[in-house]
């Protein structure tokens, strides 16, 4: 089966478009999260997503709307992480750990109590971008537009906040408002990324493209553009390779992201003249 033939399938086209949108959103948000040392928030929110999906399945929501229905609980969890970290008494990694373990524990208990939806629930652990439906595609498009608009409109504020929160505050940046927006969007991105890579690998989509781009030592805007480029490249190549090799797309996308990071890292090392 050649590439042209693969691209004719409607579900492959949906997967490609949704994948590009979700990858771009994750990479953009990942830049701010990685630089602010919130890299593991993707893991935390993914685990919460597991609990949220369990709740949603337990109350009998149709599988078509699970992604949308899981959103409110993940958003609440994201804001809980923000609230815990902004209290200054709990570090970001500990706050993420608390919310993350709560999500997993709730998911496991509900799966055990229900006895009926274990297969559905555990399918979300590994994701499958080739099963993206129209509702999820529309949601991905809306989130892409919102995230891009927020990054463009609040670029200066996000830049200052990422550099130093106290300094940003003294410049008049409404740090609390921007933080809440960032955490809200990250929650939505984590739920969407679950569809691409599965709960187990959500954080990879948020962290890896930004990390790879940061190795290039460029200005902020160029680094953001490079992160989006790496993320989209990994999704496109990952879906095609997964389809042709009959392998899981999510894992393939993550492996390609790691491959890009490795290549850029080695190339950077080799380009630095030895003393």
């Amino acid at each position, binding site marked *: 089966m050649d590439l042209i033939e693969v691209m004719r399938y409607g579900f492959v086209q949906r997967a490609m478009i949704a994948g590009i949108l979700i990858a771009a959103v994750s990479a953009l948000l990942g830049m701010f999260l990685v630089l602010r040392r919130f890299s593991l928030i993707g893991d935390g929110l993914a685990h919460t997503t597991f609990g949220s999906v369990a709740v949603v399945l337990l109350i009998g929501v149709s599988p078509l709307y699970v992604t949308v229905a899981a959103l409110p609980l993940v958003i609440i969890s994201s804001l809980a992480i923000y609230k815990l970290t902004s209290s200054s008494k709990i570090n970001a990694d500990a706050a993420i750990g608390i919310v993350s373990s709560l999500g997993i524990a709730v998911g496991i208990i509900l799966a055990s109590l229900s006895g009926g939806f274990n297969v559905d629930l555990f399918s979300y652990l590994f994701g499958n971008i080739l099963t993206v439906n129209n509702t999820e595609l529309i949601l991905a498009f809306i989130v892409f537009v919102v995230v891009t608009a927020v990054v463009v409109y609040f670029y200066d504020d996000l830049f200052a906040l990422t550099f130093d929160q106290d300094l940003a505050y003294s410049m008049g*940046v409404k740090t609390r408002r921007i933080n809440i927006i960032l955490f809200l969007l990250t929650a939505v991105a984590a739920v969407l990324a679950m569809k691409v890579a599965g709960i187990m690998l959500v954080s990879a989509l948020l962290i890896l493209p930004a990390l790879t781009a940061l190795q290039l030592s460029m200005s902020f805007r*160029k680094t953001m553009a490079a992160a989006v480029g790496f993320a989209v490249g990994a999704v496109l190549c990952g879906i095609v390779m997964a389809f042709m090799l009959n392998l899981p797309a999510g894992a393939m996308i993550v492996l390609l992201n790691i491959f890009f990071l490795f290549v850029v890292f080695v190339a950077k090392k080799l380009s630095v003249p030895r003393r």
Partner: protein
Amino acid sequence: MPVIRVDDLTFRYNGIDVVSNISFAVEKGTYLGIVGPNGSGKSTLIKNILGILRPEQGRVELFGTPVGSFRQWGKIGYLPQRLSALNTHFPGTVEEIVQMGLTQKDAAALKRTLEMMAIGHLASRLIGELSYGEQQRAMLARALIRRPELLIFDEPTTALDPETREMFYSLTGEMSRQKGTTVILVTHDIGVIGQYAHNLLYLDKKVIFSGTFKDFCSSGDMAGIFGPSSQHIICHQHDRFGGDI
């Protein structure tokens, strides 16, 4: 109207007073040195003044407005203490950092400020790639580029070489004297503040001394705090170079 008014400010962390019952005012054009031992609450006081931390008790006014409703942040240039926590992978160039927060980018002001801090040649370099001293100079340039009416520096000269340190003190002293810029300087460099600052606030969780250098030098209590020789050095520097208040 004072540029800063702090009235009966108390800030607690985990139920323990970090600073308590602090009151003072800073008039326009004043160069105020804030000194005190480690853990005396100097940086906490600055963060309360800027609204970054919220006090349990008391009130702060900036330019006559309560800090909670203050919006004219362009009037303030702030250099925080903990630049050492800077993420070395931060992908911002010196140019981007110095212009951070400016609504209108001004190429001429950027060039002038970078050259004043002797970092014009570093404009396109990433901030994380610079030495600590160069980073500090970039941060000073960022604080100065807007020509603010109030400058707040929290231990700005740490890690600066003597030449840059001297340039910093002389520049801020000149801004205070000639342009009426109000300067708040938190420092351990007590030998130097006598040379430039008009007023002194000695803090140790509460205000131990607040007033002019003239009062400070005539105060017998100060010899007990700094030791007779340090008091002598500070007052000698002030008599020799400062003393215009």
